[in-house]
């Protein structure tokens, strides 16, 4: 199936397409965030703390008098960065592992897959916490941890697809006609397994944003002056008796981004395999 056709079908999935545009906009906002924010998101104004929303502060101010709207905008950067990491790391490590295991089979496959099983068995957030603690607390390390946690899923997926493709007649015949394993991988396997991997990658955007906010919420992610929706929620929660509004804005931002990621994943899945449409 050609990429063109997939794109055409994807475009007809309206919800997914709108979500895709939304993610695009968020990415653009993230890139130009410092130019968009009406205030310096870290500038304190102690004479105007915990202000209610107004024309000058659309979402009000936090307990140090910082403009919440500007902080939510800056938070897009963290979210987008986390998503990129959570896609790039497993793509560049998990997928090759999966392909190799699936293609070679035998004992190597067994070893790789047992390791993958073991790591998948550890609850993801716990593993990410452990890795972050080991690497040292920073946003950077939290994102690396999120990427590492996603590796086994990609490896498992790539292996499954490779196993399927490997026995296809045209791959077999390519092998018989003397094609080397590397040639086979690039020529046949990678193009064939990329659609499901692509779907997994887009779903991973949601996972990454959720994981990053969770880690930051636990104090293991973004550190001031970096701004993350998760750490905004964390601070807001301590002041829930004073102003519950503060938890709403970063939470809605997180929810919308995660939702968009899920929709894009769904849309891609249907575009690649129209049989799924009914589901």
């Amino acid at each position, binding site marked *: 199936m050609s990429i063109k056709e997939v794109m055409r079908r994807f475009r007809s*999935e*309206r*919800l*997914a397409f709108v979500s895709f545009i939304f993610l695009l906009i968020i990415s653009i906002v993230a890139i130009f965030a410092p130019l968009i924010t009406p205030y310096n998101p*870290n500038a*304190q104004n*102690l004479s105007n*703390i*915990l202000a*209610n929303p107004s024309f000058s502060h659309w979402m009000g101010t936090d*307990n*140090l008098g910082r403009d919440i709207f500007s902080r939510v905008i800056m938070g897009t950067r963290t979210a987008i960065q986390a998503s990129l990491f959570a896609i790039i790391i497993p793509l560049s490590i998990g997928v090759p592992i999966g392909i190799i295991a699936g293609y070679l089979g035998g004992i190597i496959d067994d070893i790789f897959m047992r390791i993958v099983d073991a790591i998948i068995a550890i609850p993801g957030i716990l593993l990410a916490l452990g890795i972050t*603690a080991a690497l*040292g*607390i*920073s946003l950077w390390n939290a994102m690396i941890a999120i990427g590492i946690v996603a590796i086994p899923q990609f490896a498992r997926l790539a292996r499954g697809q490779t196993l399927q493709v490997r026995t296809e007649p045209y791959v077999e015949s390519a092998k018989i006609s003397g094609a080397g394993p590397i040639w086979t991988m690039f020529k046949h396997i990678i193009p064939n397994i990329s659609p499901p991997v692509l779907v997994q990658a887009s779903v991973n955007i949601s996972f990454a944003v959720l994981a990053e906010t969770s880690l930051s919420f636990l*104090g*293991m992610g973004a*550190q*001031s*002056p970096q701004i993350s929706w998760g*750490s905004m929620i*964390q*601070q807001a*929660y*301590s*002041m*829930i*008796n*004073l*102003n*519950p*509004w503060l938890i*709403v804005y970063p939470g*809605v931002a997180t929810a919308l981004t995660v939702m968009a990621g899920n929709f894009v994943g*769904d*849309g891609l899945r*249907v575009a690649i395999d129209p049989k799924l449409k009914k589901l």
Partner: protein
Amino acid sequence: MYNCKKNILAGFILLFVFVLIVGCSGAKEGSSKPGEGNSKETSNSGGKPQAGGELVAAAGADITSFDPILSTNAGDYQFLWPVYDTLTRYNSKLELQPGLAEKWEYPDDKTLVLHLRKGVKFHDGTDFDAEAVKINMERVKSKDSTISDFKNVESFEVVDPHTIKFHLKQPDASILLALAERAGIIVSPKAIKEYGKDIAQKPVGTGPFKFVKRVPNGEIVYEKFDGYWKEKEPFLDKLTIKIMPNETTRINALKSGEIDLIQGVSPFSVESLEGTPNIKVENVTSFTEKIIVFNAKKPPFDNKAFRQALKLAIDRKAITKTLLRGYGKPAYQIFPNEYWAANHDLKIDYDPEKAKQLLAESGVKKPSFSMITTTQDYYEPMFSDMLKEQFAKVGIEMKTESMEGTAAIGQFWSEKKFEAFSSGVAGKSDPHLLLEIWVAKDSFYNAGNHTTPELDKLIAEANATYDQTERGKLYSEINRIQSEEVINLLPVVSTPVIYAMNEKVKGFEPNGLVKSYFPSIWLEK
């Protein structure tokens, strides 16, 4: 997919409505003004104590161990004191009071004689005597113990069944108040012999309450000890301390009447309690401070003018007002200003101009340092954000390095990796006990082992002085020097110690060490 337009529209309306309800519901609290000054001080002594009833209190963390020599947390005292009596005690002003020792004297500089109370029995029926004290004291001094208050004690000698002598290597005035805490806890020798290391599971003392049961991280239950030596006491029939790590849990349980007394109320929650009927709030003089500790071996902290500039660049009032919402006070030394060992005249005025001037004199180019902040406490990032901005105003760049508490402690004090650490200090019963771990040259928490010859001499001298007035003068001078030279720490604010309790709770005397003594409580019917 499905009919997405309607679907999504309906969805957003629902979400919007939900969010609106949630948001509006709390808006009234959001507009309340920050509190001014301390909350009302309630007097607890009114009325004649009534016997009977059960008190349920809440604690933030479970006890580390019921074995006094293995207990390591300041929060353990509230659990230890009901079961065990100590040789001495202190009142809410941290002044020395009699305990199991009725009287004491120093026949000479190196001998301390304790005259013990007669007719005291352990919960297991055995008698309390000098032999029991000796066994306990030797346990405290032994290798298995984590307590190091008896460094200057040579040996213990039983003179008669009610008199014991401490032979000292050198004069040490801190011992008597140390005996009001772990070092002075008396465990039944019979129980020590019988249970050995399991004593932590079966605590037996002479205290007003008997231990009934413990559910780890759940609750600890005590019942009245009928054979208690103090007549009519304890007043309560039963005492239960529940472990509730989360502040909101504690507050809600207090409001619903599930528990009678909570501690560690944060400035962000006081306002929601103050208006509640049947609940009284107490804000006591606190020995707990938010401080910046630094390693004076590392530049730029090796520069005195730089340290002084830093001291003047902190706007302590702004931090008190914003971060502590008006509860708590600016801190100028590691003791509260009212304390007998404090320098009552010490004050640091916020002076950014002078700080700039000092900075210029210091010759430090591009002044900058990095400070460790711990991540689990929600107000840490706000604290460091405020400091960052205040330091930037005088031209000092502060970077922060975030890590978990355990990592921070290890890296700053054991591995000595960083320049500064946003830490806290909790008080101790005797000023020397605090100074010897925080300020003295060889102390563990003085990361750069920085001192002046004069300061070190004074610390030793103060500890060798038995007269409290004289001692007080020496400590006042020590505090002046510590502040003037900025030896190894910068006091920032004194964090409030706030208790909230049901109005029927009487006779509770909170102390600023957050070491709560519950046995004096009685309930009004």
